[in-house]
């Protein structure tokens, strides 16, 4: 779905990434790689095959948009260094695009690991009128794109129907991206006049209209 932010075109993808068309930048938040390996390391037998899901999803969005740059908006890696980093390394080596990580609260792995792979680490990025961060921020004169929250929305309808979905959460000066990682939870947000909610299904992004 195409959405115009500050006269710039962005594509909201059902996988939860946003693609900035004119700049060729793919924005991805909260992948939480390494979570499954972390669980296994602590004795919780989550199926190992599930590790591959994130990489399949990453491959799919990169193939679709062929970006020049990929910006990770924090929490790329869930925990301390573990075996899943090896999978990540393999993935990085296949990439054509420039990779940048805006450091999030979960990113506790030594920066040298990322630097060795040629990934630039940033606290934040100011690009024209846009401020890219991990934590949501307000700054005069900037539109903030961020992650961290894992936004979700509970949609209700007739007949006591309801569905919990991950979503892009947009306010006047801010866009919060959904968590990209497959093994992550959601934090439910409320709809109001001052925000727009775009829910994600497997195949579509759907704008929730304001309640009349």
């Amino acid at each position, binding site marked *: 779905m195409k959405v115009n932010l500050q006269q710039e075109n962005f594509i909201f993808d059902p996988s939860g990434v946003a693609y900035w068309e004119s700049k060729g930048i793919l924005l991805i938040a909260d992948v939480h790689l390494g*979570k499954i*390996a*972390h*669980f*296994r*390391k*602590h*004795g*919780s*037998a*989550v*199926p*190992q*095959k*599930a590790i591959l*899901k994130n990489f399949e999803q990453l491959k799919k969005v990169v193939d679709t948009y062929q970006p020049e740059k990929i910006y990770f908006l924090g929490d790329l890696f*869930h*925990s301390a260094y*573990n*075996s*899943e980093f*090896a*999978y990540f390394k393999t993935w990085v080596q296949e990439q054509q695009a420039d990779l940048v990580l805006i450091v999030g609260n979960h990113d506790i792995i030594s920066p040298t690991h990322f630097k060795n792979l040629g990934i630039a680490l940033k606290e934040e990025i100011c690009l024209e009128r846009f401020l890219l961060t991990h934590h949501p921020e307000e700054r005069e004169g900037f539109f903030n794109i961020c992650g961290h929250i894992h936004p979700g929305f509970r*949609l*209700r*309808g*007739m*007949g*006591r*129907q*309801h*569905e919990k*979905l991950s979503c892009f959460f947009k306010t006047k000066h801010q866009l919060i991206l959904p968590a990209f990682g497959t*093994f*992550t*939870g959601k934090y439910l947000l409320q709809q109001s006049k001052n925000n727009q909610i775009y*829910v994600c*299904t*497997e*195949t*579509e992004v*759907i704008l*929730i*209209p304001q*309640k*009349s």
Partner: protein
Amino acid sequence: MYKPIKDSFPKIGKMDFATGAAEDGRVINTNQNMNKKQLLDIAKTWFAQQDWKAFKFQKDTWQEYLKGKNGLLNAPTGSGKTYALWVPIVLEILQQKSRKKKSAKGLKGVWITPLRALSVEIEQAANRFAQDIDPQIRVGIRTGDTPQKERAAQKRKMPDLLITTPESLQLLLSSKNYDEQFKNLNAVVVDEWHELLGSKRGVQMELALSRLKAVSNNLKIWGISATIGNLEQAREVLLGPQTPQFENSVLIKANLKKKIKVQSVIPKKMEKFPWRGHLGLHLLDEVVPIIKNSRSTLLFTNTRSQCELWFQKLMEKHPEFAGEVAMHHGSIHKETRLWVEQAIRNETLKAVVCTSSLDLGVDFAPVETIIQIGSPKGVARFLQRAGRSGHQPGKQSVIHFLPTHAMELIEASALQKAVKTQAVEDRVPYLQSFDVLLQYLTTLAVSNGFYPEEIYPEVSATFCYQALTQEQWEWCLKFITTGGETLHTYDEYQKVTVEEDGKFTVTNRGVAMRHRLQIGAIVSDAVLSVKYIKGGFIGSIEEFFVSKLKRGDVFMFAGRNLEFVRLKGMQVQVRKSKKKTGKVPSWAGGRMSFSAQMSELLREEMYIAAASADPDLAKELGITTKSLELTALQPIFQRQLLESIIPTKNEFLIETFKTREGYHAVFYPFEGRFVHEALGSLLAYRISLLSPISFSIAFNDYGFELLSDQEIDMQQVLDNNLFSNEFVMDDLYKSLNATEMARRKFRDIAVIAGLVFTGYPNKLVKSKHLQASSQLLFDVFRDYEPENLLFLQAFTETFEHQLEEGRLRLALERIQRQKIVWKKCEKPTPFSFPIITDRLREKLSSEKLEDRIKRMIKSF
């Protein structure tokens, strides 16, 4: 700290059994081997000194125990069951001492109670006898409430007799050299076995006993159970089918005929009686005279939130009760609970509002009257609660039943019949609970380590795992060692390691610590402690409730209004609030279902109700008198008959109507909640095959509702014979995939098997990085490891423990024979009201998610 009970039984004389000098001049020779008769004489003399007469079942139990038998004792609460077993256990210690100069070290007897609240009473009973017989015998308690210091002291020197819970017993098995502690164990008594039997804590017990049988040389296993439908099976589960212990066992029945009188509290004005609801507060004033006219009263509520509300309202409307009425439920601070229990005994309290936390219990609690608020959802439970009154043998027990909505009045008269015929339900034991097995194996690996070839025969001799195959066993071993995968270079899975000689052990201290903390989690949600900011522990509360609170919210807890300040670690910090009303914590206490027998009684009552509103039918059936309950219900019946019917034996009623919420279709099989869950899901699934549709499904003990945003084509449902008995299991299995029942079962399984780490009450554990919802895990297993035994267990458990296949088939057969009466109504009927207002619902959809979202958006 704890004052011994003042009882009304005078002591006749004092005898010092340990030295053998009796006041009446008889001398018991303790220097020689004491024989059985001498031992029994000691017990009889002691009983006579208390001015008690031993019951036959008590004497029988003493006899059988001293013969070395195992067994199950069927005796109700308050019958003196505690002495039936403490006595021979103490006597055996006495006998062993008479044989050897030096007494053996370690535990001699272990008493398992499902509720730690009961441990004090049990300890008193034990001490009372043991202290008179041999003051050297030490009795101790070990539960989650036991301070760390005392636990450490116990580790160094175990008492002779230990009172503990199933979880604490598992914890003992997880400590190094546990086999030494249990080596000289003579007896394990599992009290209230019927409570444990139908739960996973029961499985924990089966496994613990299978180990104790191997490490204790002289073990006898006894269970005590209230009356349930499957007593014989209860004994088999306890002792293990075809084991030597089972072969060498007895079933002793107390057979104390207790007179129980059931009295409904009937509202004076039926017009004002609500059609729905579960609190029953509108009848509060009717309760007051009952309390005032009785020396002591217990008011049983079904949930802790109901308990809180009743207490609050009672104090508000009748301040004269201040100081005379108290509250008791499982989340209240231990000191307060103990104080209340003591006050019940002393009769210093006039009434106590309580939950099932006072369901069980030992002897001599002198309560005169019982009030049950709302449906007890089970005859056995109702009987047991009734039994809390008139505790002295021979006295009549009175129980008042207070209906919370109109339909429950029908239940009231059905209950009266059930009490007469003792139509008690079965407790269905679990089979193949892989989650509990994985937990147990890790427990053994944490303590001494284990060799599979030694443990496998023990495990497969239990009832739960009698059908465990070699492959499944191998799978379990693989699961705890490699996390279910074939070894992989990248994998860092850590839990149990295999040593060179084949011993399975846990070497990682973090793994061991987390496992020990997790053992207690088998019963509860993540529990947080509630404290004042300035300090002072009030009680504990489920995380689920706290997660919905915002700063400044006021909630009712332990009879107080508290303001939520902040959550700090595992602590909920609060301050007192002056606000009158607040939220009431909801606790996850399980929803229960009527048994087959009770459902049948309920249906019969319904047929009589139909006749009561129709003079012709009454004449036809030869019914001349109406019960008080049915007379009171007449206005409601008239309202029901305006647009619908009261179904008779040959009719199956379906009502459809439209409200602001959508299109309702309500079905009335009167088969109990669990069968309705299955029927509702089955029917929703079958209808959803006809065309894309989404349902919200609600159930209660009378019927179920399918609610949709589209009108259901009922004619098509009838034409297609969707109540057919064909392909039931297949359709049901598919409907399970579509609903969330199995998903919810998986929650417990994931916690017990150690897949998710929940932390532990009052302990701050840095586990944030290890938190994931079991829901996410369920999806991961479904997508990547659908053959995983834990994942499959969620489905089999739903089938076996919730859906009751057999009853479902019978219900469908019955519907096949009945005439379907479909009433298109303008408005909801009185019968439908309790169902359509139920908020706990299932959902099922055959629409594409995108289509559903678009339709939901349209209704905005």
